[in-house]
Each structure stands twice: as structure tokens, then as C-alpha cells.
């Protein structure tokens, strides 16, 4: 098999070939960089990758090969090239959040998620483009220009993790890390025809993720397949003492969800060998009328409004039909407070952002513009020059809603509604629904420059933002194409029930087969 073909394999298959000595990690690096060059991932073309260093990646590859040679447990991601969104701190490559204010900034420490990837054998090959500070839904807000969609270069890749979704869609890496605050992994994954998962709030450490809205932010995974996403999340999930909001709940082996059975007991010795890559996951049975037997899938009416694009609706109905044919029960449900999510989100997220972005003040690192007229002038000049329009807009919005006299009317009320939105999800799951199915986005990818009104852009997150507000896990899986553009279907489950989410996602992927991309 040629090395190019390896890059088309799933992460698990690549890792087992590396562990078996069938392919050299260095060759995988070269193949990844060649693929990036071939497709035009650089700034003048698709603009997917902001920073990459082939020489450093080759050194990393050599280390992995040494670990293979020494017969150590290299890990489930042995020799797998991974791309990282530019707002996740990594050693070596810059971490700039696609902002001018952090131009050239290299973090002296690494995000826990990245450290865990490396510890499991992954090799970091690129920092990917994004909306500045993750604020946007199209990667058009990058200070370094928009990312183009590899499926159709006239269109946006979605955002804010547009670079990560595009990197996976373009075949540069099988797995990429993104981050979510309101749909920033799922939406670009849907636009690019790949899988994107946002875990439960607290499932993955935020240490090293540059904060946008701390109570909503989570690192997520883009994968070429459900299995890639499951494997990536499995590695980065789990408690981290550096993040007080990370959870101590056990992390199941999400890949076992492919077998269509409930999760095995935690710390079962047979399955633990799978976790570290010593044993493979058993081959799943083909989809059958029993695959989702006993699983109740909720179809919330608020996510299928009359105004929904018929192309999207039809593809969702096909997916629901496929669930039914695999033994699932489809139940009509209601999440009545979900329509309030966009206004709630655009109060809470900017409020937190206005505070989180205060540290970019020109004093300690990053850009400093000093007109020599005192401290206040330095702050103003630095931040005016360093932040783009959307970031500035949200800082102003957030500062306003937290101001004396407005706090109760905006922030406090929005928090109260957020609780109600989460309660809707809780009561649906408590009533016996195992998973919720919705479209990921109201439309497929739109042409670059097509949306100039910020509010219209915000509506892109209408189906995804509720999972962030409620803190529940959600995944977007390709369910077909309309006008040759990919469409994603979203599966949402209860807090920390990523296993069921993956189980339904694996079934959908298998049930649709090639139709997922047609």
C-alpha cells in the first residue's frame, strides 16, 4: 500500500499499521504535508493551515518511531497526524487565535488535550485557521483571511473551527481538534461533510484553550468518520486538576459503541487493553433491524420549523427513516425554550468574552501599540489595532450587558433562561428519550461574503447553541448532500452519555453508508 493511501485510512487503522511497523511515522508526516500542498492548504488558496513546521513534525515522527522500536505502548494514536485549532495552546507552533493581537505568540505551555494526544502517539502537524478568538460561524473573521471549503472553494468552511474541519475534509489529517462555544465544531463539520463532536461541558479539560466564554467553551474533535471522532475524544477526555470545571466521571471507550451494545463496566480489564491500543476493537456487525433496538430517538418540533429548508428536511427524514429501520423508536418531542437560545447565548457569551479578553492589553505579551500618550491611550491603540470588528462588537456588547443597571435585565435574566433551556433537555431524557436528532444547521455552506449582517450570521448556530447552553454532548454526522453541498444531522444525548451519542452516530453512519455523502 502506498503512503498516500494510508492518509485515507481512519486514525485507528493508521495507528495499528504504525505499531506493526508497516508504515513509518515520518512517511505519514511527509504524506500529510504533501496533501496539504497539493490541495493548497496555504494562505493564498484554501487558507486552512496557519502554522506548520515540517522539520519539527519529522522530529516528532522520529520520536514516535523510537517508541515503536523500543516496543513500548505507543498509544492508540501512534503516528497519527493531528491538526489543532489555533486557539489551543501547543508547544512549538504559534497560538494566535487567528488574531493580530497575538501575532507571533508562542505558548510556553501546552493544553492538556494536546499533551494527551502526544502521550498517545499523535503528531501535531498544523495549527488551523479559525474565526478570530472563535467568534464567528464562517472563519471569515480570521485576521488572516477566510478558509475555503474543500468541497466547494467558493463557499465558507463554516466556523469558528473552519480550518480544522477543512483540514480533515481535505485529507490532511484524519483527526483535528476544534473548540466549541455555540456550535463551532459541529457547524463547520456539517459544512465540510465530516464528523464533529462537542462533548459534555467538563468532559475535556479547557486548560490551554484560550477562553472565549468559559462557561460554554469545550474542546471538540473533528474526524473523517465517527470512529475517528470517538477515538480522538476518548484520548483527550477525562479529569484534569488544572481545570476546576473538568469532571471526574469515568471515560468509557467510545469506540466500543460501534458494537451497538451498552457500555461495558468501567475499568473492565479486557476493554482497558483496547484503550491503550494493545487490542483492537472487535469488528462491528453490519446494520440490522436490531442495531438500535430499544433506543428511543426524540424529534424536537422546534428544530423542524415550517421554514426549514426542504432539502435539509428531506435528508433528516431519510436519516430518521434509517433509525427506524434499525429498530429505533422515533418520538415527537418538544424543547419549548430552545427558540430563546440565540438571544440568551448572545448575552452570556459576549459578557464572559468581554472579561476573558481583557488580558490582551499590550502589557505582557502580544501586540502593543503605544502612541506615547499614557496608559489609557496605549490600551485603546493596542486593542483597537489588535481586535477585529466582530471581536470588538462582542466585547462592547458584553461590557454593556454587565454594566451597572443592566446586569439584572440582561445577564441575570439570560442565566435564568439558560437554566430553563437545560431543564427542557433534562426532562426529555428523564422521560425515556435516549437521544435527540435534529439538523445541525439551517442551511448548507454559503458562499464567502454572502452574509454580512451579524444577526443573520448568528442564526447559523440556531440548532447547535442549545447543547452548549445546556452543557449536553452533541455530534454532527454527514447525512447527505443538497446542491452538491454536505448536510449534517445532529445527535444530542444526556450529560456524560457520549457513549449513547456515539452508538447512534455509528449506526447512522453505517445505516446511510455511501448515501451519507450523496
Amino acid at each position, binding site marked *: 500500500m502506498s503512503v498516500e493511501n494510508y492518509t485515507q485510512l481512519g486514525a485507528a487503522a493508521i495507528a495499528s499499521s504504525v505499531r506493526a511497523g508497516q508504515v513509518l511515522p515520518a512517511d505519514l508526516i511527509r504524506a500529510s504535508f504533501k496533501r496539504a500542498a497539493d490541495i493548497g492548504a496555504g494562505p493564498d488558496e484554501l487558507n486552512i493551515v496557519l502554522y506548520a513546521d515540517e522539520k519539527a513534525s519529522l522530529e516528532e515522527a522520529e520520536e514516535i518511531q523510537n517508541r515503536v522500536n523500543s516496543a513500548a505502548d505507543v498509544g492508540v494514536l501512534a503516528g497519527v497526524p493531528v491538526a489543532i485549532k489555533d486557539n489551543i495552546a501547543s508547544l512549538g507552533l504559534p497560538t494566535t487565535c487567528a488574531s493580530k493581537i497575538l501575532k507571533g505568540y508562542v505558548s510556553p*505551555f501546552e493544553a492538556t488535550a494536546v499533551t494527551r494526544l502526544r502521550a498517545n502517539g499523535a503528531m501535531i502537524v498544523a495549527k488551523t485557521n479559525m474565526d478570530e478568538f472563535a467568534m464567528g460561524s464562517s472563519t471569515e473573521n480570521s485576521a488572516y483571511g477566510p478558509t475555503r471549503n474543500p468541497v466547494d472553494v467558493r463557499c465558507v468552511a463554516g466556523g469558528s473551527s473552519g480550518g480544522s474541519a477543512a483540514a480533515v475534509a481535505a485529507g490532511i489529517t484524519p483527526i483535528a481538534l476544534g473548540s466549541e462555544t455555540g456550535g463551532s465544531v459541529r457547524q463547520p463539520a456539517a459544512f465540510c461533510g465530516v464528523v464533529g463532536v462537542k462533548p459534555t461541558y467538563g468532559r475535556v479539560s479547557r486548560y490551554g484553550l484560550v*477562553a472565549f466564554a468559559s462557561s460554554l467553551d469545550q474542546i471538540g474533535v473533528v474526524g473523517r468518520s465517527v470512529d475517528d471522532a470517538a477515538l480522538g475524544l476518548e484520548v483527550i477526555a477525562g479529569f484534569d486538576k488544572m481545570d476546576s470545571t473538568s469532571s471526574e466521571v469515568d471515560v468509557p471507550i467510545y469506540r466500543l459503541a460501534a458494537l451497538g451494545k451498552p457500555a461495558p463496566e468501567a475499568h473492565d480489564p479486557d476493554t482497558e487493553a483496547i484503550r491503550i491500543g494493545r487490542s483492537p476493537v472487535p469488528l462491528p456487525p453490519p446494520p440490522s433491524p436490531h442495531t438500535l433496538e430499544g433506543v428511543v430517538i426524540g424529534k424536537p418540533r422546534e428544530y423542524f420549523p415550517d421554514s426549514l429548508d426542504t432539502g435539509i428536511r428531506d435528508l433528516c427524514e431519510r436519516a430518521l427513516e434509517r433509525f427506524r429501520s434499525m429498530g429505533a423508536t422515533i418520538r415527537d418531542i418538544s424543547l419549548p425554550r430552545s427558540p430563546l437560545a440565540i438571544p440568551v447565548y448572545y448575552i452570556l457569551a459576549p459578557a464572559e468574552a468581554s*472579561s476573558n*479578553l481583557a488580558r490582551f492589553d499590550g502589557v505582557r505579551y502580544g501586540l502593543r501599540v503605544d502612541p506615547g500618550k499614557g496608559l489609557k491611550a496605549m490600551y485603546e491603540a493596542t486593542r483597537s489595532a489588535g481586535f477585529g470588528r466582530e471581536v470588538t462588537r462582542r466585547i462592547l456588547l458584553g461590557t454593556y450587558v*454587565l454594566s451597572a443597571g443592566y446586569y439584572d435585565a440582561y445577564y441575570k435574566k439570560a442565566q435564568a433562561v439558560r437554566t430553563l433551556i437545560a431543564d427542557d433537555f433534562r426532562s426529555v431524557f428523564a422521560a425515556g428519550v435516549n437521544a435527540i436528532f435534529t439538523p445541525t444547521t439551517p442551511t448548507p455552506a454559503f458562499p464567502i461574503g454572502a452574509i454580512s449582517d451579524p444577526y443573520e450570521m448568528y442564526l447559523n448556530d440556531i440548532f447547535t447553541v442549545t447543547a452548549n447552553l445546556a452543557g449536553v454532548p452533541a455530534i454532527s454526522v454527514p447525512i447527505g448532500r443538497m446542491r452538491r453541498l454536505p448536510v449534517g444531522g445532529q445527535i444530542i444525548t444526556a450529560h456524560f452519555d457520549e457513549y449513547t451519542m456515539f452508538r447512534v452516530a455509528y449506526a447512522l453512519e453505517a445505516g446511510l453508508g455511501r448515501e451519507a455523502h450523496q
Partner: protein
Amino acid sequence: MSHERYEMVVGLEVHVQLKTRTKAFCGCSTDFGAPPNVNTCPVCLALPGALPVLNEHAVQLATRAALGLGCKIDPVSIFARKNYFYPDLPKGYQISQFDQPLATGGSLVIGKREKGGDIQVGITRLHMEEDAGKSIHDRYPGATAIDLNRAGVPLIEIVSEPDIRSAAGAGSYLRTLKQILQYLDVSDVSMEEGSLRVDANISVRPHGQSKLGTKTEVKNMNSFSGVEKALESEFERQCAVLDAGGRVEQQTLLWDGTREAVRPSRTKEGSHDYRYFPEPDLRPLMLDGKWIDHARGDLPELPEATRKRLVEDFGLAVVEVEQLTTTPALAEYFEAVARASGDGKGAYNWVMGEVMAALRGSDEDIGRFKVRPADLAQLLSLVRDATISHTAAKRVFALMVETGKQAAQVAAEEGLLQVGDEAAIATWVNEVLEEHPEEAKRYLSGEKKLQGVLVGFVMKKSKGRADPKRVNQLLSARGG
């Protein structure tokens, strides 16, 4: 005089650095005096992506302080962000507590009223927060230097009710508070090192009026007496404003210790909107009832209780125990001496006399004083059983301080052991009578008042070793 018509109303906000080894939200050292920016890390430098993790020891110390001040601990308190831009505030916000503080509703007794009854000052709240770094404006011409070693050091802020009515009362409150915090061992409480800082809110009103006047906030005092002076000065200023028919303007004032006057701060009060909101990077602080009870059970004895006990156990006067309980280390030292020697009064005299004098000379801390309580107790015992005289004891003590040796050893080496032997004393008495024939003659002929002088000669001759009691007896016998 204006101050006869008006009453001063003062509330104090006291910031106290907690004595933790590491900072409030990261593992950096809290050592005072390290080179600039050495004790920093991604968290306290606010590098992108860093997150705070609460230091449990800081919670323990804050809880102990709150309990020691009689506050009620809230089982759920919330950290909040106080947002403002300043170069020594790396995150652009301070992690503090706002509408759900750690503790509320305590009080301090700062003295007695003339007609009896305690003077109490209420404590509104006690909350946890982090310190900012330091801006150094006078080091480099035309530039400000930033030292972030202090950024993130844990603080508690103790806010009093506006119950204080005089500058002296503010001083008493601060001294009492400092003393309690020392007993609780939660802070170094040093105003010079900045581990205790005081801001004062002051207003005036005509006597008998219940409505509060407009307050000003006075900052930048660097000693308790500075606080007292600043309050006197600001009181006079406000009274003068009112007497002239003016209105006191709400503002922040800075105390200038050299000019002994307040001046307006550059930042205008009211222009600050801190935009507080709950800190999303930290979970609510939950303290369970058992844990709080345990902390309460672990509280050390506080000065008031110590004073009461010392009066009861050693029969000392109230003023005496007040001196002894100034600091917990002094009280502890005294008590150890008193218990080991069984002589409370003697221990008091020695500790407040010789020991304090020696400490003043050496600038040493009593906790590390060379003469340990057991050694001093031994010296007291030697005096009591007349092994050495009181005069000799002072020399012995001086030598103990100098050499670190034990009392008995020093006394023996220096030949200062008291001589009770009849024959030896008789010899000295005889020699004295011979060497001072004039005095001897007058004494022997009945001039009794000369006995003291003669005893003195004998003591001198014996280099303090003669037992004065025996000397007196012998002389009396001769004097007939």
C-alpha cells in the same frame, strides 16, 4: 470648634494576606522579597489558556479567620470577577467574592465603655480574593515597572460596620484585629510588608442625627497611627466643609504621611463600574457543615480567653495580662516560664523586665529567643531557693543570653552561687566591721539604720554570694 458639634462615623476595610506557601490559584511561591517576576507562572501571568485552581489552604485560613472573628460561614460562596484594567492586574479582572461572600456577621470587642459594657464593632463580611501585582513608578524615568510576584497571593478582605466613632477607636479596632489574626496564625499582619492594608470610610454628622453623612474613602496609610492621623485630619476637613455650609463630596482620598494631609486620588469614585459576575472558571465553593465544625474545633485560644485564664491561674492583674498577651508568642513564652517555675508573679517580672529588655536590644523574636522558657524557669527556681541572689541572677541571665548556657552552670562557673554558710558569712561580717570602724562603732552603739549600709558592704565583699537574710541576722545579733 467644629469637632464638638459633629460625630465621626468610620468603617474600615482591611485586606490581609494569608500565610499560605503558594498563591491562591496557582502553585507559585508567596515569598516576600524575591527578585521581580520570579514567582510567576502561566496562571498568575494570565497567559492565554491558563486557568485558576483554588488553593485549599487559603480556604482553611480564611475560614479560620472568619470563625475567629465570630462570623457565620456560608456553606456556599461564589467567586466573582471584578473587572478593571490596570497593568499590575494581569487578567484584567481580580478574582474576588461579591454577593455571596465566604462569611458574614461577626464582631470585635475593642474596649470597655466608661459606664461598663463592651465597645463592639460589627463585621459586615469577610471574603476571599487575590492580590494584584505591584506597579513601580519611581524606578525607571518615564516608565512604570511591573512586578507580578504578588499577583495572585491570597487575601481576605474584612469589612467592618460603620460602628467606629473616633480615630482612637479605629486604632483599637485595628490593634485588636491584628492581635486576633496573629493568635489565629493566618497572616504575618505586617503593615510594612503590606500583608495588612487598611482603607477607611469616614463621614461626619451632627451629634444625635441618625442619618449617615456622605462618606469619603481614605487610602494609602502605612501604619495604625497613620490611620488615626488620617481620620483626625479628614474629620477636621469634613467638619470645616459642613461648617462653611458646604457639602462633603463622595471621593477617594490618599493620605500623605509626610505632609500629614489627605489629597484627592486621581481616579474618580463612581467612574468605576467593576462589572462583577460569577467566575465561570471556578465552581461555587461548597463547605460542608462537618468541615466547618472541625475548623471551629481547631481554633486556637484567642487573646480574650488567654487573658482570663492567666488572671485566674497566676493571680496577675488585668493590665499585666494585657501586656503579656500582646502577641501569642509572648503569652506562650510567659506561660511556659510561669508553669515550669510555679511562680506567675516572678515570671511576669522577669519576662516583662529582663527578657523584653534583652529582646529590644537584639531585635530578636521571642519565639526564637536564646533563653528558652525552661531555662528562665530554672533561673527563677535558683533565686527562690536562695541558691543565687537576685542581684547575681541578673548577671547570670545576661550571661545566659550571651552564651546560651544553663543558669546553674553559669552561676557555678562565675562563682555566683549564694553562700549560706554561717562561718563564711561571719568572716565577711567581721572583715567589714574592721574595714569600716566608724560605721561599726555607730552601729554597735545602737544606730540601727546603718544596718542596711553594712549589709551592702558585706554583699559587695562577697560579690553577691552572701545570703542577705543571714547577713542581717548576724549583724542584728552583734548589734544587740
